[in-house]
């Protein structure tokens, strides 16, 4: 009698623990799914911002005759956060001197890369663009900017495609895999 009475609350406490664990598992996998879908939706947006940044860089070079460092600083004030860091760091490195434009561009690209939602293809495009930056006269520079914009356009279309395809899948996949894990562990 006493043994039975003792067992009941113990069992209840254990199922309570199980419930808490199940909730934690569900929450974490759902969160992971949402994080992945946020990454997917962030990529086209950042590509669009990057394109508009390049456009204003073109305008600064062609019509404003602004030095590259000042132009980068201006652009960093115009665009929203993760990308603006890139131009801010770039202009800071240019202002501190002692580097070429190419190494400053590459280093600032590597520094902010982790916080961007972009892929390896965009990295290559941007670092190739950095090689041409500040090397030639204004008209050649404009051509390079236009070339980079077309590349980015292609990547943006790809990113939008992927977003439409996988965004919902990733969300529900996170939740369902959490559910499956709970059932398997129960």
């Amino acid at each position, binding site marked *: 009698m006493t043994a039975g009475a003792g067992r009941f609350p113990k069992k209840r406490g254990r199922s309570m623990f199980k419930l808490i664990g199940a909730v934690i598992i569900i929450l974490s996998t759902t969160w992971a799914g949402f994080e992945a879908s946020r990454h997917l939706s962030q990529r086209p947006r950042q590509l669009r911002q990057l394109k508009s940044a390049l456009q204003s860089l073109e305008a600064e070079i062609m019509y404003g005759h602004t030095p590259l460092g000042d132009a980068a600083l201006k652009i960093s004030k115009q665009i929203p956060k993760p990308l603006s860091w890139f131009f801010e760091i770039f202009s800071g490195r240019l202002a501190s001197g002692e580097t070429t434009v190419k190494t400053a561009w590459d280093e600032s690209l590597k520094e902010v890369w982790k916080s961007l939602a972009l892929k390896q293809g965009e990295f290559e495009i941007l670092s190739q663009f950095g090689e041409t930056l500040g090397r030639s006269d204004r008209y050649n520079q404009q051509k390079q900017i236009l070339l980079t914009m077309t590349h980015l356009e292609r990547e943006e279309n790809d990113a939008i495609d992927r977003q439409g395809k996988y965004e919902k899948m990733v969300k529900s996949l996170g939740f369902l895999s959490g*559910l499956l894990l709970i059932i398997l562990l129960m």
Partner: protein
Amino acid sequence: MGIEVDIIFKIAGVGIVVAFLHTILDQVGKKEYAQWVTLFGFIYILFMVASVVENLFQKIKSVFLFQ
């Protein structure tokens, strides 16, 4: 008896979730992943059922062979 009902619900739960996963993966065109998921779910359930059947055989042995 309680254990058997429990295992039936577990199998049903795995089946439902795996069916959902299959549908979603199928819709976005990842057919091969969908089939892998279904296959693994099936194997898992098969193992569970095998353990139950093994229990049954043990019981039959203990009844008829007097061990």
